[in-house]
């Protein structure tokens, strides 16, 4: 079974330059069919809709339709004041609320030009890295479901619960935390947080390995994802890809390293890119592998942060929060590395009101998904599912 699928029809493999694109010959009996995938479909990760033109199993063209979860974030951002936006930001990428808050707070703090206590920075990094692991686990789990393996999904969710418990213990909410505030965080860590987090890290390391054995190294999984949805690096940059998607194409681009915001410059972590031995650089498998490797890196970051974090008795994490948040006139583009890529906020302040004049969220999924049309050309329907899964979209962030 080692050679299983080796002679896959190379004519169907697509590279975006288009030299290997499948050309469906129009003979007399062939007829195109329009297949409407979604908005309620198990593999579209929510309410994405794809209108596929198909010829048999081959997708000639897939046009994504968005907006089924358009919740008017930008309108709300203009209607409520700066701290009031945080809960809405939470609900954008609901799998990684902490990271969203972090990105938003970075943008506003840049505008306010305030200094954050060092301990708060560490706390922010810890919670957002925990949330990054949780988010990657959902991404990997749902990807497994897309490819037909149900058990890894449940393993992922089982381990995710531990992280949710940690974050709930810290912030009081299971999913949408509203924890990172402008200028600080809502509460100090509970007593013993460090010990329990380290316990979790110790528990989770073998589980991550188990997941890797069950899924990533599975022969069928590799056959299903290797070489599917190829995206060369330059095209990926042109499409504005970021995060694990861009790194999957072999570009070492991580905002934690490039921008070096917060305390990331002090931390020792690797920017994960595929080495091209296990996967073809730029395919779905690479993107999956990058996520799997990042889980490991995030665990390292958490350990380092817990080690370096200054301990202070009676620390008030809200001490740096301004009494009245009214930035001076100006505009800013602040961004941070979300589990799905670059999450940026473009904020205009008029200097007079406590509400932003404009707050645009540059969501990573939205941008990553825009390459869907190109990626899907000439693929088979099962590959289409594999590609959507590898993009790891969260519709809340795509549609905002």
């Amino acid at each position: 079974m080692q050679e299983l699928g080796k002679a896959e029809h190379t004519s169907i493999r697509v590279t975006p330059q288009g030299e290997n694109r499948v050309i469906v010959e129009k003979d007399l009996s062939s007829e195109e069919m329009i297949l409407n995938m979604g908005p309620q479909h198990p593999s579209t990760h929510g309410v994405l809709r794809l209108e596929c033109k198909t010829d048999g199993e081959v997708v000639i063209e897939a046009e994504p339709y968005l907006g089924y979860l358009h919740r008017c974030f930008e309108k709300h951002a203009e209607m409520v004041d700066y701290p009031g936006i945080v809960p809405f930001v939470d609900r954008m990428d609901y799998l990684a609320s902490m990271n969203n808050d972090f990105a938003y707070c970075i943008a506003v703090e840049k505008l306010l030009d305030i200094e954050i206590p060092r301990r708060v920075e560490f706390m922010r990094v810890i919670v957002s890295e925990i949330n990054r692991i949780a988010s990657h686990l959902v991404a990997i789990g749902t990807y497994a479901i897309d490819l037909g393996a149900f058990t890894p999904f449940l393993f992922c969710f089982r381990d995710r619960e531990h992280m949710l418990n940690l974050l709930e213990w810290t912030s009081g909410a299971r999913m949408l935390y509203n924890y990172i505030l402008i200028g600080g965080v809502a509460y100090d860590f509970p007593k013993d947080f460090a010990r329990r987090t380290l316990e979790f890290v110790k528990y989770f390391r073998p589980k991550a390995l188990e997941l890797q054995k069950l899924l990533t190294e599975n022969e069928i999984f590799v056959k299903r994802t290797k070489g599917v949805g190829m995206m060369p690096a330059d095209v990926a940059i042109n499409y504005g890809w970021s995060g694990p998607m861009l790194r999957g194409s072999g570009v070492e681009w991580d905002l934690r390293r490039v921008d070096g915001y917060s305390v990331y410059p002090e931390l020792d972590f690797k920017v994960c890119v595929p080495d091209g031995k296990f996967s073809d650089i730029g395919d779905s498998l690479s993107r999956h592998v990058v996520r799997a490797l990042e889980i490991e890196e995030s665990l390292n970051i958490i350990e380092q942060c817990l080690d370096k974090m200054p301990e202070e008795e009676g620390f008030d994490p809200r001490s740096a929060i301004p009494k009245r948040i009214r930035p001076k006139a100006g505009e800013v583009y602040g961004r941070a590395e979300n589990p799905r890529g670059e999450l940026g906020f473009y904020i205009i302040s008029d200097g007079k009101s406590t509400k932003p004049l404009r707050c645009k969220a540059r969501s990573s999924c939205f941008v990553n998904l825009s390459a869907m049309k190109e990626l899907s050309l000439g693929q088979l329907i099962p590959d289409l599912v594999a590609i959507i899964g590898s993009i790891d979209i969260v519709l809340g962030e795509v549609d905002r």
Partner: protein
Amino acid sequence: MGESQESVSRSQEVEAALALWEIVHAAFPDAVSALDENPFMPFFEVQQTERWREIALFLRDDPKLRCNYMACLSGVDYPEEGKLGIVCNLESVGVHAHKIAVKVYCDREDGVIPSVARVWKTADWHEREAFDMYGMTFSGHPDLRRILCPEDWTGYPLRKDYVVQESYHGIKVPN
């Protein structure tokens, strides 16, 4: 975040942007404005809107610039000036370490901005979103349709004078 470290990196950012702007200004002396040297987001404005695509291509392809990555394209409404605009955050990934923002304006009613969807493919959806929310047209866009709101939605929601429609397909919209 260390204050001193941050201010150093910021000024570096502005310096890089200034060097970038000088090259663009030399190539298009009439079309671009002076650089706004604010520490958060240095930007310049495109004064001849119709030359925006040319400038964009130059920004992307000039070997000294190579702004190959468009981080963000946001539509903005300026009701006082009677204008709509877009703000593009550009960056060079893997080649140079500089970034800059560009602003392009158009009229509020029936405004047209040249599309850069063929320069940066990511601009395709961003421009569709700006069209959806603000209603400016992007000339030369391959597929300019609404992206988030339904096709038959009335009005442009993010304009400051937007009024929500009463019902959509028989369903009451406002609360």
